[in-house]
């Protein structure tokens, strides 16, 4: 992504205007990056739906939003609300990705063969849940698809910001900052 930089404009002048002539690189970047991220989420969604349905549903929704954003970026007239939602959802996805690879999250599968399968109920006479939750078992490892996906998402966020009206683009940036700080704080306090 090679967005051209504008000087900081704390007054917000011109913040409501959309870029008159969007840079073709920004358009191409947004389309390609949203599409890659959305498709990768679709690819891994079934596995997650099986393991943790909530996570799988989240993946499907993220994919739908990202693919819609890719479509919006390429369309003439560029419906910026769709692009904005795509960028904000993608910021959330990046933050969630960072958390899942950094700390144990309660909703993540515990790395046990029987997680999510209500297996304790299949042990005759069992009282309670016999599936251990080991420290670190709810922290996902980084895989190739993950890395490609998050790289695409970062490109998508920057490219979308370049295509959005100034104030909305700034909102995406501020959201990114808040998300980054939240992730770091979570790691420091709970990791």
């Amino acid at each position: 992504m090679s967005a051209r930089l504008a000087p900081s404009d704390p007054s917000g002048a011109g913040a409501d205007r959309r870029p008159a002539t969007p840079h073709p690189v920004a358009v191409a970047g947004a389309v390609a990056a949203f599409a890659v991220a959305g498709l990768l989420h679709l690819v891994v969604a079934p596995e997650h739906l099986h393991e943790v349905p909530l996570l799988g549903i989240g993946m499907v929704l993220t994919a739908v939003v990202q693919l819609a954003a890719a479509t919006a970026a390429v369309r003439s007239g560029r419906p910026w609300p769709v692009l904005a939602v795509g960028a904000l959802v993608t910021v959330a996805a990046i933050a969630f990705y960072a958390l899942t690879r950094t700390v144990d999250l309660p909703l993540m599968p515990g790395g046990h063969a029987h997680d999510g399968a209500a297996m304790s109920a299949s042990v005759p006479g069992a009282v309670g849940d016999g599936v251990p939750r080991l420290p670190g078992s709810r922290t996902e490892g980084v895989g190739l698809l993950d890395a490609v996906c998050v790289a695409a998402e970062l490109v998508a966020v920057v490219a979308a910001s370049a295509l959005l009206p100034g104030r909305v683009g700034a909102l995406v940036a501020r959201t990114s900052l808040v998300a980054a700080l939240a992730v770091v704080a979570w790691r420091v306090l709970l990791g």
Partner: protein
Amino acid sequence: MPVNRRDLLSMALLGGAAVALPLEASLRPVALRHRLAASALPAPFSAPLGVPPVLAPVRQDADTDYYRVTMRESTTEVVPGLRSPVWGYEGIAPGPTIRAVQGRKVVARFVNELPATHPQWGYAPWTSVHLHGSASLPQHDGYASDITNPGQYKDYRYPNWQPARTLWYHDHGAHHTAENVYMGLAGLYLLTDPLEQSLPLPKGEFDVPLVVTDHMFTTDGVPLLNIVEGKGAWGDVVAVNGRAWPVLRVKRRKYRFRILNASISRSYRWSFSDGTPMTVVATDAGLVPSPTVVRDFRHSSAERYEVVVDFSRHRPGQRVVLRNISPPKNVDYARTGTVMAFDVVDDPFPTTDNAVPDVLFPEQPAMNVPEGAALRTRRFRLHRQNGLWKINGTTWDDVVRSGFRKVLADPRLDDVEVWELVNESGGWFHPVHIHFVDFRVLSRNGLPPAPHECGGKDVVYLGPAETVRVLVKFERGRGRYMMHCHNLVHEDHDMMAQFEIVDPAVPAPDPLSEPSSWLPAGEL
């Protein structure tokens, strides 16, 4: 384009967090963040070797000894100076040793007084006690789904008709065997017989059990179980009889060491620092036909090897270190190559029972089954699929879903079969345990078995990309028994299946036919 530097910096911060934090987690896994540093571990050989106490029966009658064993939480010092919680039989790890005599039955009441949930790992610690090496009835074999909840007990009956051997009792509860055994639920059960008693092998204080485990701890002493990519859990502390890197003072004579690898994943290859030879006198199924001298040998989880070591040629004051040359596919740490030390002293000793006869047990049943008697060969593929460990595509979950009916083999009573165990992967090893039976290792990748595998076995090491053939006779029993990988992480996830010894004339007892009872318990 209205992306200013400040906005770009904000997004770059998110990108930095998304790259740096997972990278940090990869380099310093979450599970290990509170690990006791290697620099904080004690100097090796600072604690004397302890020997688990022998459990006294609560009563005896004409043909049976009765024991009561309570599983409970306690604390111990595996690492000297660091108090650690432990779950032990009678609150100690290893648990107390049960001594049994061939021909006298044992009834052991195992009472689960463990906490309702594990304080760190959050699971309900039901148990199932398996007497490993015993030809027990299915309902007394520690069937993984035949569980005892906290607040319950079960009376296990052990027949003790087999030849003398070193057995061990350990947890086998579904879903968390690895965690329960790691917490300490393992102990020795020594069965003797007239033949063993008649041999001049070392006895009494010169017959020493060595229960080897590996551990990892947090800085405050809490056990830390780090499962590496689902393949296993390897600790950075090696303990013998519950003490890290202990030392034993030995007199200048022969000792018999009964070595049990009770680690949940780690395999070892033993050798002495000065090349002292070891004479293998017994394996899982007891005395071997004739002894074999080795300088080193491989030992996977749950196997038992008994070796006689002669310290008579050592100088008083000499220290001999038992080392571990790690077999492939273990995770090793700075100190896992060292196990324990033997300090030779010049104290007087009795000269009786200080020999290894050239012939020990030529009639060893498992070693006398002719290969030509095999009726068929069955092939068992141990593999990994979608993150699950499987045997011929089957998991314990499949057995459960079949109403506990699904079996991978159904030999008839007194059938002899060759079982071909196949590890298709070069990425890991499997110690394969077949319940109820003893077997003979026929070959390993088409070559003869290792020299130390010279006796009857119930666990066999299946190395990376290896095919091992074993010869089994299914005699003196019937019913469904488990077979599984004794890397307990693999077993829990879910490399366990079952077979059935079929006797058309006599129905077999169901493994779930004698469920546990709630406390309070009546008279034993």
